[in-house]
């Protein structure tokens, strides 16, 4: 389906829904394609291709609200029947006066900059080249160490096209591409078979790092041999940049309009309050060129803006969409995160490690969760014990336990090694006085 055909279909669906009893309608049409190639034992293990299309229809009927989706787009009669039935069934719901499309004045109006989120050469890349690049990743590892028991190398890519139209004046589309090469390696010594992985990803094929991925995965797996738990204690914790973004998740979830209105947040009524240490400087920037979370409008069509979320630990902004904005009596700010950028500090990971007398470098999470209402958390971790500024031993089978507010008050240092392959861009982070459970 071409972009024009998607717009035409979306508009036809909106017309049909309005004629059938809806007062407002939003339609999103997605078209995704992806390829996965995985290599094991010098053979292709999996060769997968996926092409999917789907439509989501948001209905506002007599102050009642429902959302419907289908991948059956070709038969007009069937699609019309699907929509008519959806509208009829919506009428059985309770009224919800807060449901409506956004104010048209807040919509993105077009003419934004090119954020370079789509590689237009996506379809012209030679499939053989993709396969070779995955074989090359495996080759870096094979035969490099006798403790290797399994190596899997993967090439993945994907392209998604989205068109969104609302009945009160929004029309917009976007296209995204991604490429990734990864390796996962298992090694063995005694009974334990620890493994680790490494990958690179990019928006443009020619920016994909194709060398060193297998080697790095092997290195990381080998370093884990002999891992085990150590005595429970309170210690400083460094979280490696690749994982550090995850540590922000409970904090960011607590800023969501839905969490605040449903009392499932530990940051209710905290706007303007200091909730973290001075080192917590977090900006939401939708306009980073080729950023993984970059965009000009959100899932409602609201024009995105760059904004400060935390400044020197002070909470500056919630994530409020149209619906929860109305319920809370707050102006919508967009309910989605784009690129979250933590302001980098001065030192790199090695310097941060060297600065610790005793502590743990966390390089992997293993399960765990956080309580949305209270911020209490407990996560499984593995990583390395640091003593007198040096890594001395791999640790595993341990937990960190505490409260998110206390944790971010104890944020002592932010590294300068910003991890750029994710929408949440964090450098390595150092927290003081974290409770580790082990022996």
């Amino acid at each position, binding site marked *: 389906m071409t972009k024009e055909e998607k717009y035409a279909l979306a508009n036809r669906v909106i017309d049909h829904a309005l004629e059938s009893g809806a007062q407002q309608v939003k339609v999103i049409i997605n078209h995704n394609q992806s390829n996965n190639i995985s290599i094991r034992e010098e053979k*292709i*293990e*999996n*060769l997968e*291709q*996926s092409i999917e299309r789907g439509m989501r229809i948001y209905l506002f009927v007599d102050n009642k*609200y*429902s*959302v*419907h*989706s*289908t991948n*059956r787009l070709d038969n007009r009669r*069937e699609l019309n*029947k*699907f929509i008519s*039935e*959806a509208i*009829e*069934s919506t009428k*059985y*719901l*309770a009224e*919800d006066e807060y449901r409506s499309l956004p104010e048209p004045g807040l919509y993105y109006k077009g003419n934004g900059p090119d954020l370079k989120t789509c590689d237009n050469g996506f379809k012209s890349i030679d499939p053989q080249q993709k396969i070779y690049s995955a074989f090359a990743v495996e080759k870096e590892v094979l035969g490099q160490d006798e403790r290797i*028991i*399994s190596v899997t190398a993967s090439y993945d890519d994907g392209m998604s096209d989205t068109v969104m139209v609302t009945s009160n004046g929004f029309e917009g589309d976007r296209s995204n591409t991604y490429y990734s090469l990864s390796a996962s390696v*298992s090694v063995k010594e005694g009974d*334990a*078979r*620890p*493994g680790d992985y490494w990958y690179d990803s990019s928006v443009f094929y020619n920016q994909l790092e194709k060398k060193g991925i297998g080697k790095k995965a092997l290195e990381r797996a080998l370093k*884990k041999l002999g*891992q085990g738990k150590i005595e*429970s*204690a309170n210690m400083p914790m460094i979280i490696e940049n690749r994982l550090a973004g995850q540590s922000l998740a409970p904090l960011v979830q607590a800023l969501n309009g839905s969490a605040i209105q*449903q*009392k*499932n947040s530990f940051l209710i009524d905290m706007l303007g309050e200091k909730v973290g240490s001075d080192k917590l400087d977090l900006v939401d920037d939708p306009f980073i060129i080729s950023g993984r979370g970059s965009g000009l409008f959100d899932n409602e069509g609201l024009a995105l803006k760059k904004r400060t979320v935390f400044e020197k630990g002070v909470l500056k902004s919630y994530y409020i969409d149209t619906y929860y904005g109305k*319920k809370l009596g707050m102006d919508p700010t967009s309910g989605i995160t784009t690129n979250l950028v933590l302001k980098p500090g001065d030192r790199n990971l090695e310097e941060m490690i060297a600065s610790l007398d005793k502590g743990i470098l966390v390089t992997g999470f*293993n*399960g*765990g*969760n956080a309580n949305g209402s*209270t911020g*209490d*958390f*407990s*996560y*499984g971790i*593995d990583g390395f014990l640091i003593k007198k500024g040096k890594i001395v031993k791999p640790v*595993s*089978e*341990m*937990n960190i*336990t505490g409260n998110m507010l206390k944790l971010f008050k104890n944020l002592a240092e932010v590294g300068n090694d910003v991890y750029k392959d994710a929408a949440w861009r964090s450098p390595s982070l150092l927290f003081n006085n974290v*409770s*580790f*459970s*082990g*022996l």
Partner: protein
Amino acid sequence: MNFNRRNFLITSGAAMAGTIIIPPFLESCSSQKISPDVKNYLEHFQMTTDILGKIISGAMSKGGDYADLFFEHRISNNISLQDGKVNSAGSNIDYGVGIRVLKGDQTGFAYSESMDTESMLDAAKMAASIASVRGAFNNDIFSEKVPSDYYSIKTTWEDVSVKDKVPFVQNINDKIFSLDEKVIKVNAFLSDETSYVLFYNSDGRLSYDYRPLASFGAVCIMQKGKQIENSYSARSYRKGFEWLSEELVDEIAKEAVDRTNLLFEATKPKAGEMPVILGAGGSGILLHEAIGHAFEADFNRKKTSIFSDKMGKRVAENFINIIDDGTLINNRGSLNIDDEGNDVKKTYMVKDGVLNSYIHDRISSQYYNVEPTGNGRRQSYQYIPQPRMRSTYMEPGPHTKEEILAEVDYGVYVDNFSNGQVKIGAGDFTFFVKSGYLVEKGKLTEPIKDINIVGNGPQALSDISMAADDYKTDNGTWMCGKGGQSVPVTMGLPTVLVKKLTVGGINT
């Protein structure tokens, strides 16, 4: 379920995502004898045996060893309540065919969301390219496999309207508010799903399944002074609309309120290793994470599981029997045929303390030269099958809960969980405890909450020193994720004692 064909052609104006695929009544020109049941499914997907043969031949055209077609039509509905009213609903239709070709242990896979022969042949050719020899394959074998009947229902979800469902969700809200003055919010939901599956492979096996699945639950949010806490309760089964009742509403409401209430007084235990008593029911998460994933045969075939060379060896006390079962009546994890068209079995993974069987998909059962166990599952037609759990549980043991409690001087008792995870090779697994109790001198004392427990699979299994006679299945809304695919599962356990696990907590 041998449903009446009428059922899936009718669309009541009120059913939300009713079945509205309009079959063109194709008649097969093939002379194959096809039962009325299979014929219904063929018509449902606008297929004939001739077209099936053509697609499978396309899939085998480059010399594959084996190919299969997995047609699926899934209709999902949900309604939900916030701020006292059932004020949101949704529905989804997903329809397509996954085409897989195997060459040894290599897999080629593609799918088509369109049932026109041309699109399906394109996908078949893409999947075929895992093999590279030109080969001719003519398929005209159709050998029907009649599926089991583990989840027959009375009233299909397709025949029920939003209007019929709303009162149950409203009632659960009202019930929760009536049970405790501290309740400030309730989020409640009811979701249902109906899948039609048609399966055909290059061996000629032709089968089908009708899979209902429904989930009903609520989050209860309470406030006491400044403290706000919430907890969740839900049930999920392969049952029809007749499942919903006032008793069920009461059961879920009471559990959600009780679980939330417990949290106001809860503290955290000391950090470190200690005995852990796993309460009957949801504690089956221990089996799922510590053992179940590591027994999935793909990890063992690739030697990446910590249990890879333990087959036939003693891994636990001799009173321990651990089962993965796809045959439980109306269970969320049960299947009439697995997603590779195989019979679904009750599989003893550990029998009398000895590792007895891995759980297999087609590739691994051929690798190990064993009968398939019916564990080949996929999230949908868009994914390749993998060895996956169904309902994973331990049979009752020789002890009592009282005897187990009496063994513990200081430890924790846990019975309410939200999630878990495992690292297959290292064997390290975790599960997150929403609530439980401290055990001091053989007695349950203070409540505890929000702690992660971590252990190592083989060690934890051999550290199970007692198992009680009070077995319970947890019929909650458990989803199991692996390799980017989610499938519904359940779990169960009698009360057991694990000599030591590392408990997240406070260092004093």
